[in-house]
């Protein structure tokens, strides 16, 4: 039986990525994700993988582009300011239909901001960030275990849809230690098999027994009609993702909920403990926790509203970004209220309880 180990989120996600078959990792140091790059520096050589401390996040994401173009499982990670620099590369990766995994250990912004946990990169992660009509699949863990599990899920999703996947965590999850149980590591044969899945499109000269190919890894198309077709094909893919890959957790969502809360990641942990407290006092409060923040569980939120529900309240470690998606989901049926903190400040369960009580 697999054994539980106590680990920081940053290290757990790195270990899980290696186990999932990631053999190339490129990144630039930044707090609060440095344990991740340091773990990779230590462990990649042990599995004969590639670790490069790149000259910048821009270079790192473009190394990812090159490795992914060769059909390899490849990852990069950073924190908010560095993720901004990766946006150019992500747009190219999405445009060229390449799988890749990017971890964002969010910190307070804008600008250099601070190094405290934040959720202020939600817009950037879910609404674009880079240029053009593209989407990232964005998974938002709320525990070290989930963070680790999501690493392998992220690689599978990236491969399945040939699309970049972002793990959207924050400084708290990155730094926090929790027990985690890992999946067995993929063997070299299994990894080779995974790489072979990409043989119909990746650069693979001399790898598949065939000694020459002309594959083009490319996002350029000057003919607007052809480009539109390409973007429409991406769009079809995004529709499939929206249909098949929405993930969420419902906590205490019941017919008698007076209040429905929505929160993801670190914020959802705090809301959850607040709800438990309120339950003891006899209040019925539900929580929908989006696990994928894109695709967004809009229907689940809409369907979690009952005749008893008076209000929907969104909690975020920002001054309100996901709240816009919740409003779209609720579609005017109920008032949508909001509590958020900025600058890397994490609200306490008491602040959450007080906010909910305003409406009870």
């Amino acid at each position, binding site marked *: 039986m697999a054994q539980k180990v106590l680990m920081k989120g940053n290290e757990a996600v790195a270990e899980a990525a290696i186990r999932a078959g990631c053999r*190339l990792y*490129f990144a630039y140091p930044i707090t609060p994700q440095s344990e991740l790059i340091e773990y990779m520096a230590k462990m990649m050589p042990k599995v004969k993988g*590639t670790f*490069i401390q*790149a*000259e*910048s996040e*821009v*270079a*790192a994401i*473009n*190394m*990812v*582009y*090159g*490795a*992914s*173009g*060769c*059909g*390899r499982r*490849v990852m990069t990670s950073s924190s908010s300011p560095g993720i901004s620099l990766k946006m*150019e*590369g992500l747009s*190219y990766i999405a445009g*060229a239909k390449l799988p890749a995994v990017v971890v964002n250990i969010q910190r307070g912004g804008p600008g250099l901001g601070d190094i405290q946990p934040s959720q202020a990169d939600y817009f950037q992660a879910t609404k674009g960030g880079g240029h053009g009509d593209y989407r990232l699949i964005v998974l938002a863990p709320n525990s070290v275990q989930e963070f680790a599990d999501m690493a392998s899920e992220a690689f599978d999703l990236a491969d399945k849809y040939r699309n970049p996947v972002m793990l959207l965590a924050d400084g708290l999850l990155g730094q926090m230690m929790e027990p985690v149980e890992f999946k067995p590591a993929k063997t070299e044969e299994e990894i080779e098999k995974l790489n072979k899945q990409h043989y119909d499109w990746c*650069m*693979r*000269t*001399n*790898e598949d027994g065939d*000694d*020459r*190919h*002309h*594959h*083009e*890894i*490319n*996002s*350029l198309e000057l003919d607007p009609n052809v480009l539109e077709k390409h973007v429409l094909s991406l769009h079809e893919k995004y529709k499939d993702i929206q249909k098949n890959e929405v993930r969420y957790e419902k906590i205490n969502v019941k017919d008698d909920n007076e209040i429905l809360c929505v929160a993801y990641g670190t914020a959802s942990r705090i809301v959850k403990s607040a709800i438990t407290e309120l339950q003891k006092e006899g209040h019925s409060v539900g929580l929908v926790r989006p696990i994928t923040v894109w695709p967004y569980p809009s229907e689940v939120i809409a369907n979690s509203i009952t005749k008893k529900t008076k209000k929907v309240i969104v909690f975020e470690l920002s001054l309100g970004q996901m709240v816009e998606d919740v409003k779209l989901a609720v579609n005017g049926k109920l008032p949508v209220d909001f509590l958020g903190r900025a600058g890397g400040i994490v609200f306490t369960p008491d602040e959450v309880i007080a906010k909910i009580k305003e409406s009870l």
Partner: protein
Amino acid sequence: MQVIAQRPKSLRDIPFTYCPGCLHGVAHRLIAESMDELDIRNKTMGVAPVGCSVFAYKFFDCDMAQAAHGRAPAVATGMKRSRPDMCVFTYQGDGDLAAIGTAEIVHAANRGENITVFFVNNAIYGMTGGQMAPTTLPGMKTSTSPYGRDADDIGYPIKASELLATLEAPYYIERVSLLSPQEILKAKKCVHSALKYNKEKRGFTFIEFISTCPTNWGIEPIKSRDWARENMLKFFEIGCFRDKSKTVEGGK
């Protein structure tokens, strides 16, 4: 009768998208011929830049990736590290390599990344219509230096080969000219060496081509070569800046 010169196999049967008389095509041919001669067509992957040579990914008959502006050396790094068995090269213009992509080229060279970089220096931004490049000569007029490049204001042109030759790691750095058949024949030898060293995994190799942009210089093809000879070669000296095969430890 025997064919003694024809299109190399490493070029696909697609006409180049360059303007008439633009020497990008000559650089392409030298690379493709060397690939044929070294028998590495089936062992090569290339990276196209952003610039007039953006379509290079269509022209070479091997696996090709198209990179974001300036990022080709980083993309090539990702490719080479994924496929150490392959020869990986980038093809970049002066805006791509010496302006927006300065960090990527310097650090790929500094890592001694086992790739070959082909750098086409035509002293101007071709694709976007003739703006000032990091290699634009002092006093040279472009659409964004309409009064001539003022070196006191915006600095002197960057000598990429000399710059990279300050680093320890690069194995081979040479600047060549494409301005006459004789010079092209010399350049060919250097391109061949660079790819040969690449095949032998000796380290980072770099060829800078002194080229032309007849269209944006507003000088017809033949005269544009004369203009380049008179002006560019004075500033950008032709020659070898590093060849470790000629030193004791590099010649192994």
